């Protein structure tokens, strides 16, 4: 039965690797400027993890095959190099591998978090709340009016709690249920939540960031391809969490300008 176990372990390992190698299930295609760094990091990690996974399972299987059902009278042997060899091997191989991954991965992370948004990045505000995302564009004055939480009222559709009668900056703000952005134009996303923890995940844009109640969180990204993508919530926020989503449309500059104009008239 040891030999059957050995074969089973090795077979499971190989079969598990097949969908990965065949790219059967993959992330949505990347349409961001920084995403390739994440994808490259992912691919490198997959190779190294894949080797470690297959090597470990195959070695385990091999030794089970060889040393189960040994003949009586066989003597105990030590693995060549003993424990010290394996310990040193672990430090050198795995240690350098993981440190390399860690060090190289800093670049992808810093592209997202340690670079400030470009001076001409377009500011867009997103508010998360049970169970929808709403977006606000600053309008021609380029300023977001202040938010008054006590004025938030879904019934009257005052979603951001704006006081357009008394706050001049709010008068031209454009509030939408869908997000649209121009292609190849950096976006500076200003994130806040109305009520609880939520998260902003756009797999195609390679961004995921939690909202933090009480904090304004900032994110920036640039889309490189027009199309319609999904923004989904990934931080459990209640019974409607599975359905909390919005569409993101990436458009040409011209199409975006007309879309914004259209939205302004709907306010």
């Amino acid at each position, binding site marked *: *039965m*040891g030999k059957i*176990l050995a074969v*089973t372990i090795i077979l*499971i390992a190989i079969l*598990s690797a097949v*969908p990965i190698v065949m790219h059967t*299930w993959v992330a949505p295609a990347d349409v961001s400027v920084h995403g390739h760094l*994440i994808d490259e990091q*992912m691919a490198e*990690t997959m190779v*190294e*993890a894949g080797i*470690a*996974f297959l090597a*470990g399972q195959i*070695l*385990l299987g091999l*030794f089970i095959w060889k*040393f189960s059902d040994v003949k009586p009278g066989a003597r*105990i042997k030590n*693995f060549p190099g*003993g*424990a010290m060899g394996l*310990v040193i091997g*672990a430090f050198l191989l*795995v240690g350098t591998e*993981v*440190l390399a*991954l*860690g060090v190289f991965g800093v*670049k992808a*992370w810093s592209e*997202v*978090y340690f670079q400030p948004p470009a001076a001409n990045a377009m500011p867009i505000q997103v508010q998360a*709340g*049970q169970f929808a995302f709403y977006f606000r564009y600053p309008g021609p004055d380029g300023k977001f009016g202040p938010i008054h*939480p006590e004025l938030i009222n879904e*019934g009257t559709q005052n979603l951001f709690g704006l006081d357009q009668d008394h706050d001049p900056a709010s008068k031209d703000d454009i509030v939408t249920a869908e997000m649209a952005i121009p292609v190849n134009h950096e976006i500076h996303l200003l994130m806040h*939540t*109305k*009520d*609880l*923890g939520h*998260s902003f*995940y756009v*797999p195609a844009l390679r961004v*995921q960031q939690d909202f*933090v*109640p*009480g*904090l304004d969180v900032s994110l920036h990204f640039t889309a490189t391809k027009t199309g319609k993508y*999904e923004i989904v*919530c*990934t*931080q459990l926020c*209640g*019974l409607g*969490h*599975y359905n909390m989503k919005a569409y993101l449309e990436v458009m040409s500059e011209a199409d975006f300008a007309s879309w914004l104009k259209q939205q302004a008239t709907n306010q």
Partner: protein
Amino acid sequence: MHDAPAHVVHQHAAPTSFIRKYVFSLDHKVIGKQYYALALIAVLTGMVLSWLMRLHLGWVNLKIPGLHLLSASGAPGDVMTPEYYLQLMTMHGTIMVFFVLTTAPFAAFGNYFLPIQVGAEDMPFPRFNMMSFWVTFTAFLVLISSFFVGDGPTLAGWTQYAPLSAVGAAAGPGQGVGEVLWASAIAIFCVGQLLGSLNFITTTLDMRTKGMSLWRLPLSAWAWFITSVMGLTAFAVLMPACILLILDHVAGTSFFVASNLVLNDQLQPHSGGSTLLWQHLFWFFGHPEVYIAIVPGMGVVSHVLIANMRRPMLSHRVIVYSMGALAVLSYMVYGHHMFVSGMNPFSSLAFSFPTLIITIPSTILVLIWIGSLYGSKLRINAASLFALGFISLFISGGVSGFFLAQPSIDIMLHATYFVVGHFHLVMAVAAIFGIFAGTYFWFPKVTGRMMNETLGRIHFWLTFVGAYCIFMPFHYLGIAGNVRRYQAFVDDYLVGLIPLHRFITVAALITGVVQFIFLYNLIHSGFRGEKAPLNPWQATSLEWSTPSSPPPFDNFGGRHVVVYHDPYQYGIEGATDDYVMQDSPAQIQSVRDEK
């Protein structure tokens, strides 16, 4: 902490009444069995919850007959509502992590075997020990009661992130009374764990018999000791966190709730609290907790494998140091659960490095286990099958950690099924395999009977293959961006993944049913199993030296145990058998013998 002779004065007399023998027992062996029984009830409950979850995920409008009896509001017409899915999910995670994975490997096996393995008659604080079980049992009752109150249990996941968990009923069903019951149950659970840890630590340090130096402790004893130190420090943080959470509900405080939050168009009466504070407190506990779940399994698997390889580990000390390194590092990595939480992104990098480095002791353990198989005389039986399966599962689950340890990759994989696959492989499957290995191995000592070996092997094969069929696909779903904690998959990019979910559901149901083979074997063998010899595995550690199976009340029948060897004197040449018992005065020197 020197090995002074343990005086053979038992702290408590042998019980006579039924209540003292089987209910409020001071005997560590009875307490160990009570914990095991609790874990068994918990795992069956948790497993049924997982079936309900998986059925719903595969077929979202499925009528599950009788479900309305469990909750009329949660399943009107037997169709699960979105909130009820989340409530079942929360209870599944909570029950499994606390009442199965913290209870069985550590409290059940540890309580039973640690005193025997150190050569003691019992733990030093038997009343605390009895209390630790009954407090844990009370915690379980308080948790389960939330199914039957008001609008049901909390739906905030076993991680209970604030403010969802802190603002009260306004946030959704189960977030009022259900939430307070959850936090109370877990706070009570923490008390039980602290009492237990106290006993484990003092047993290991102060109750070792003559000749039992620390380096002569079996690897299972080391694992329980290391786990108990983690338990003391980790649960000591979770308990106040739960108390603060309860206060946010009932005392109008705002530890975890920021100002100016609006729910259902109402400004919430909280100000000044911190969402991230909950996450820091929770994960400071939460990460050591997952090592509390796995380290005992590592110790048990090492112990079981050694007896079945007929040789000690390639290096006994390296195993101990590696488990210790995991324990120490486990406190430094917790922020990897919070990479995209909004905490300072520099902190994310800081946490990622120890997370990557913790791969090293994990790898060392796997390499020592595999390296020790080399040149061994491996015996295949139900116990060793599960021990070997543990190694395979730990490799699989551990390797997916390479991805999650990197913040940049976590941007894509956080809160997806990749994470769920990772922790299920290491915790749900590997740790459970450790429990199974321990059960098949120690059943003869606890009951005096053998489990049915054929049924044990069938149980192993179907569970091993089944578990991989369930949890390997989770990784593929995660790579595709499948978000977790969704009761249904309605997003355009997720709809195409539903067939894979259905495959997983079928695998889960079949693998679940297979567990009843184990249950039947456990119960039937307890009554009708073949009588076991005193030392059926020809093993060396002190539990196999007791004069009877089950051991007598004081473990060694009044004998003052003296230890002459380390616990793994196997592969002896020139002896009649290929092993020497730990308490045998026979002086045969052909392998390194720890002093």
